[in-house]
């Protein structure tokens, strides 16, 4: 991998697969494709050939807005001492089962 991607390189897409109905789509990897339709078929060929999915999402990598490592302090650290946000202080009736 070089820093300078050649001009003719195809755009990068991220691939999300729903493994079965009721579950949510999970990020499984990425691939190069000319456009969204080609990314969808490529994702089908690369990531679902062993029956891994029932639904596929693809999205241009450049369209994803991500938090940066510098955000970690202000974003996540303040949550660490707020135990009251975790619902661990309730007694669940047995009928509820697993939550």
């Amino acid at each position: 991998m070089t820093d300078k991607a050649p001009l003719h390189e195809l755009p990068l897409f991220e691939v999300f697969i729903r493994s079965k109905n009721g579950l949510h789509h999970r990020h499984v990897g990425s691939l190069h494709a000319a456009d969204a339709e080609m990314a969808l078929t490529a994702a089908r060929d690369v990531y679902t050939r062993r029956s891994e999915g029932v639904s596929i999402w693809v999205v241009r990598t450049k369209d994803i807005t991500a938090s940066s490592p510098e955000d970690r302090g202000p974003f996540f650290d303040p949550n660490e001492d707020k135990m009251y946000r975790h619902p661990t202080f309730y007694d669940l009736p047995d009928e509820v089962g697993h939550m």
Partner: protein
Amino acid sequence: MNRPETDPHFEYLLRLGDSSLILGQRLAEWCGKAPILEEELALMNIGLDLIGQARLLLSHAGQVEGRGRDEDRLAFFRDVQEWRNLLLVEQENGDFAKTMARQFLFDTFQGLQYRELAASADSTLAEIAVKSLKEAEYHQRHSRNWMLRMGDGTEESHTRLQKALDELWGYVPELFEMDEVDQAMIAAGIGIDTNALRAEWDSRVREVLSEATLTVPDVGWAVSGSRKGQHTEHLGYLLAEMQFLPRAYPDARW
């Protein structure tokens, strides 16, 4: 040469199975050489779909023939003149544009063929057709996508794809040719009238070519002969590679 004693039912299944197998083998030649990894997997998936179809069709052909030949016997121990695949599918891969043009012309045909064969009086053949139709529909989507993107892509991709179509167009009329085997199978309710599919094939192909800014070739030549075992020079080399191992080591095992 067509031996007069050949059972038309066997012959018919052989034609279907052989076209799938030879095109599957052609696609397998891209293994390790495809332009990008994503496309490599796509080509291998499609090739393996076709080889899977061929296994079912040739196994069934062997049973219909009743001389104890199984799928492997039929795939690996027949010489050029005994093969019944369409001339189109044995044409060399060339560049990626040629591979995709060949694929598009065939996929469009095969999809229509399987759709009709799903109603065959031969229930095994009908089941194979139903299963294979889903695969064929995906193959069509894949090759159609490439036709649109290469045809309406860069100047180079357009030029290459148009050249590929011009080179392959003369093999198209054979897809719709029919002989006494086809007639016998139509009469028995087993086979289909491919001639009746021509108009639909034409309109589908023309629609894509037009959207892809490609010109429908007007080449002024056409060849056929696969029904009689007359092939282009390319099939022999393909068979030599495909059949080498089981012929050199008949009892070879994994």
